């Protein structure tokens, strides 16, 4: 019994702050902790705020492109680590794939920015801080997370299916495309979603590699939040939470429906 009380406490701890924020997004008063009646004016204000809408659109584009790059490269890296047991530079490769998982974000952000500055001086690319630099940075750090997800799936996969295909004369590329890929597809999807979430949520690395012309949504929110809380951020946060909730519900339905 006491166990369930403790569990309820954990859920309360996890959800009360989010619920409070959602409730206050409908507050008519500009004072964020005093209730001044129900209103949706902050939502209306938000939807006419060009800066926020532009930032949200940029974030979405960056997240889709960088998650796709991370999924392709991360999957290749996972195949290399699971299937190719011995090759020159394996230790270095394994280290480079796992290091971003434990690397503080401030270091990754600083290192990438210094690289971009050095490259721009040397070869003129990338020109300044733009969507390109954010995509490259996000693709790099989320690659490792995709590799973890795909790797565990490859590890648990039944190797005899691949062996059977090869015994029947299928070439390695064919085996990969028609046997391996369909089997690990759920892991690829999970990895892509993880990379997408990491990208669309990232503040620290984006702060280093984004410029005045290209500010993703978290940067816009962060610079506002640093000045204190404001009701339109509550509204924005509520929209984000609602979107995630709906997406998770659909994903859950699909997953349960398949079973």
């Amino acid at each position, binding site marked *: 019994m006491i166990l369930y009380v403790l569990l309820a406490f954990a859920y309360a701890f996890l959800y009360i702050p989010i619920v409070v924020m959602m409730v206050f997004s409908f507050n008519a008063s500009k004072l964020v902790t005093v209730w001044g009646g129900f209103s949706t004016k902050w939502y209306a204000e938000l939807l006419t705020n060009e800066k926020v809408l532009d930032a949200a659109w940029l974030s979405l584009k960056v997240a889709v492109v960088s998650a796709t790059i991370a999924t392709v490269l991360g999957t*290749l890296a996972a195949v290399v680590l699971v299937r190719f047991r011995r090759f020159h530079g394996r230790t270095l490769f394994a280290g480079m794939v796992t290091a971003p998982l*434990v690397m503080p974000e401030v270091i990754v952000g600083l290192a990438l920015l210094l690289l971009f500055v050095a490259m721009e001086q040397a070869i003129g690319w990338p020109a300044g801080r733009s969507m390109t630099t954010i995509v490259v940075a996000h693709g790099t750090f989320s690659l490792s997370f995709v590799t973890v997800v795909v790797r565990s799936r490859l590890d648990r996969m039944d190797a005899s299916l691949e062996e059977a295909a090869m015994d029947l004369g299928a070439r390695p590329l064919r085996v990969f495309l028609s046997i391996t890929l369909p089997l690990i597809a759920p892991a690829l999807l999970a990895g892509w979603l993880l990379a997408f979430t990491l990208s669309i949520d990232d503040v620290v690395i984006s702060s280093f590699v984004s410029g005045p012309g290209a500010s993703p949504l978290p940067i816009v929110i962060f610079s506002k*939040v640093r000045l204190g809380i404001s009701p339109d951020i509550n509204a924005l946060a509520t929209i984000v939470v609602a979107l995630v909730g709906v997406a998770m519900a659909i994903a859950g339905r699909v997953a349960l429906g398949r079973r």
Partner: protein
Amino acid sequence: MTGRLGRFLVGLPPYLWLALFFLAPFAIVLKISLSQPDAGIPPYLPLWDAAAEAGRQWRGTFDNYARLAEDGLYLAAYLNSIRIAGIATLACLLIGYPAAYAIARAPTAWRNSLLLLVALPFWTSFLIRVYAWIGILKTEGLLNALLLWLGVIAEPLQILQTDLAVIIGMTYSYLPFMVLPLYATLEKMDLSLLEAAADLGCRPFKAFLAVTLPLSMPGIIAGSLLVFIPAVGEFVIPDLLGGTDTLMIGKILWSEFFDNRDWPVASAVAVAMLVLLVAPIMIVQNARAGAEDKAGGKGRR
């Protein structure tokens, strides 16, 4: 295209990408950490002075590292980061363990939903979840209003902008990382062991200490690492919830870079963090992975 060439072509793209965008940047960080600061753009001098009369001349310096060692601020920030992250990890364990245990012992039909409820906040924005605490913790915020109304306190407490607020924020943000691995080990546990202990006259609490706790050790270690590692280098939480005197190493790096525009010292801080923080963690991780591989290999035979 079997064999070597095929393998080479598969491995090449991720290898090149990581070498260029992950390895090379650290070489540049190392280089800049040895450079002298400068007022120009970029704000550091090249290591080799090409314009010197006697050919190229070495202009590197260890001054930036000397500053880290001499100025007590950096050491204090490093130790304080470890302290705060350690307390947050312990708090996550204290809240997360009973929760994971309760989920693992709940009816099977409920478990997935209960677990999803723990993971759901992780998929919503991290920044927004930290932000939500500002309204709760500030002096005229909801927590103080509640405590005043209950008569527990006579005057509002200063919680926001203290280390306590940072610890609360970290515990909140990283709790799912603790619960998920704990659940994974607790769920796999063989319950007949507890029955055996009970049959032999062991009281439930003692059985927990003697059987459940040791068996869940891998989950405790995995969860603690997942919380501790990102918490130590955290920037957003101390920046939003902590005060100006909340020293954390991630915040120091940030302000050296953005506020002081001192790229060489920021780079030196990054190198020091790599050596003192990331390297030990990677060594521990590798040792654990190696031990698990061995144990797993034996188990499979």
